[in-house]
């Protein structure tokens, strides 16, 4: 279906071929072939499809693509550049500090939920660079992990917090 709809994803404009009511997720996965956002429930219950829309985490599985035409979408793939922009860094790092912490903590199992965990964790650290354990628990509560890696996600967010807030040893 030809439309004039364009979306901006990771700083680049993308002409949308799908119908305007199509959830953003299917545009990101089937048109742009991005691997970050992924289908988990289609009901906004789990967070596997999360992306940032103007710095705010949204569920792309229930968001019609037409409703984000005027918003800047950032996916997992664009997160290091987004972090650099937010923090006035000249060059984007290879990884967002939270991604590095996930590697350092050997946090994940299957990794399927880590798109959402990374997006939501990055949003949290941008808004609150030194979250308490209770704040992390509360903020991350909309993101499910079935492998049981919550304790290591918690630890990784705390480790990344030290990098983001400049408290790194």
């Amino acid at each position, binding site marked *: 279906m030809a439309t004039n709809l364009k979306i901006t994803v990771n700083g680049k404009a993308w002409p949308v071929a*799908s*119908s305007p*009511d*199509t*959830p953003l997720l*299917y545009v990101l*996965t*089937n*048109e*742009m*072939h*991005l*691997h*970050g956002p*992924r*289908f*988990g*429930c*289609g*009901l906004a*219950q*789990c967070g*596997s499809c999360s992306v940032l829309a103007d710095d705010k985490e949204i569920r792309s599985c229930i968001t019609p693509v037409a409703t984000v035409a005027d918003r800047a979408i950032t*996916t*997992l*793939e664009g997160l290091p550049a987004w972090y650099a922009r937010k923090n006035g860094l000249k060059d984007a790092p290879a*990884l967002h500090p939270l*991604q590095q912490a*996930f*590697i350092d903590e*050997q946090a*994940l*199992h*299957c*990794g*399927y*939920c*880590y*798109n959402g965990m*990374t997006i939501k964790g990055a949003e949290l650290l941008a808004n609150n660079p030194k979250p308490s354990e209770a704040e992390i*628990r*509360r903020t*991350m*509560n*909309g*993101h*499910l*992990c*079935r*492998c*049981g*890696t*919550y*304790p*290591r*996600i*918690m630890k990784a967010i705390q480790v990344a917090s030290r990098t983001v807030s400049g408290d790194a040893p």
Partner: protein
Amino acid sequence: MNAPERNLPLSRRGLLKAGGALIVGFSLAGGPATAAPAGPARGEAAGPPDPNSIDTWIAIHADNTATLYFGKCELGQGNTTGLLQIAGEELDLDMSQLSSVRLDTNVTPEQGATSSSSSIERGGPQVRAAAAEARLALLQKASQRLGVQIGSLIVARGVVSIDGEPNRSVSYGQLVGDKLFDIKFTGTAPRKPPGEYKLVGTRVPRVDIPDKVTGIYTHMQHVRVANMLHGRVVRPRGQRAYGTRAAPLAVDEASIKDIAGARIVRRGDFLGVVAENEWDAVRAAQQLDVRWQETPSLPDMVKLPEILRARKSTDTVVVDIGDPETALGKATYVSSATYFSPYQAHAPFGPNCAIADVGPDRALVLCSTQDIYASRKMLATLLGMPADRVRVQYYEGSGTYGHSCYEDAPQAAAVMSQAVGRPVRVQFMRWDELGWDNYGPAQVAQVRAGIDADGRIIAYTYDGWQHGWHVNETSTELAMQTAPAERTAGSFSIIVNRISTGSMYRVPNRRVVSHAIPMVGLLKGSPLRSPLDMALSFASEQTIDDLAHAAKTDPLEFRRKNMGDSRWLGVLEAAAQAAGWTPRIAASQLSNADVVTGRGIAVGTHHVSYGAAVADIEVDRRTGNIVAKQLYGALDCGLAVNPALVENQIVGMMVQATSRMLKEEVTFDSTGVTSVDWVSYPVLRFAEHPNCTPVVVQRINEPSTGAGEEVMGAAGAAIANAFFDATGVRLTRYPLTPERVRDVLAMKKA
């Protein structure tokens, strides 16, 4: 995306670039070769490749790297890393020189299903033996090349040199360099003694994690192929009583006529839709108006324990030692109770997905099965082709924890592809995966155990009632209209196991009976991580705890006193030590506060490893809410090839066991299953997770045993025992939901 995908068996020629992203080349003509030996090139002929050939297992490349061919798949547990460590250890290669390929019925050896935590336990020795034999062959070649005896040679990072003459050397790559070994795998080459291990036993980082973190990794759900359609299954939302197919009586094609390009696929009672666009397939599946045949009712969920107990059963005496009935008569105290564990779902976080391309006489299927060769056989039957015309390739999906819908999805894709003559990608919707799962079966247990005046366990009986596991996938049952079938015997059937039912204690009189009841009329069952062990430990370890309480003994001390085996004692002590256990009789410090705390301990396993756990919980007596605050879990799996992998598994097991103990239960009404999303099938959420302390009891001289399931039972039972410690009341049915907690606390008061 410019990094190559690391886990692809086929050459880069097989990749298409489209939209800046990786699309997997997909052709029924077979994969391109990676070497050019005489006879068919690797990947050209249907497997399994000859297990008695070293070339089946290992290839050495000119750049002095090695490719390992495993038959065990990465499920997110890290077995790829562990198996590479084993191979690297024997070959004297380091991790940067090692890689493996995805499982493929044309490429990788048959090592059996990646189930029962068997990758390292049963797959590891084969890999170790093959690598040792390859190393010996390489040393023989080097010996000829350098003109010295093998005994004078040393190897480091795949470079063979003469001991004391480092300048006289030759690399593996120079010796074999992309040519075949062309030798038999005899299994006779000497393996390194464990005391000399440099790579095995170390905390090597997982090879799959970096790509998963950056989003480069290709899960099954990411794969797209040229010319494919998107398919969805169309079924009632929530399965019916097992044994009655969901038969579509009337399908109103006009109900989706506004979705251009959406087509209905029907074979027998199988119903699906395909469309060019995924969203159109999703919409069409939801919008299609179908009248389903009415099916017999499911039983009342609340009365399930009585219903299971009343069914006609086929009984197997699993353990029969001494005379438990007489001994129970002499006991100073007998603990006797009936316990119930619910149906629970695998509930992979990403629903299963598969792509099938079925031609007139060949098929290629991509999916997340735990056993590619078993999948191939089932697909061949469904498609009416010989097995060697079907090729199955494994792509890791979302964690599966046993037999989720990972065979059902590829079968659905195959049925649809065969019907429409194009590749079809099927992804289950959340309600398909949760509603049509093969659930971990419910169980009723009657446990009795008695102690003498000295606090010794003198008698123990365990009777368990549960049904078995399914034979045919739902797509096969629907499309081929097969009769209901259940596994009642053999390695893929389920039985009350003797290990988890008191075997860790010295009990002179013990009887364990498995009562197999028919699955028809209940729900479809299949292995769920640590099959039945959570149920067994929940019942058995609460019984032991009750005996300790009656003996007025600290529950740790009571177990210690009644255990004989040093390895069971080892994990028990390790968990207790990690928790800083202070001896105390359970429920001896009850409080009237609104929020009370409790600590519990328990042991358990799956088959052969040894697990123990301590749980600290809080119980809100007003709301009935239980919070697991902290869990400590110890595991002895013999030689832990990579203790960091095992620790990560222990953490995952403890969190998942907490979820299953506190929250998870498949629900149904008289019509069908009603738990079909994350609201109706709640799992443990981020804010609810316990802090976890994993402890690996390393035993380098013992054979490696399973490490992915063996703490589940202990962790769940430790929570149940902690509840008793906090409240003085036993919960005999899980999940321990706020409603059940309020009910038992109210009954205690009354």
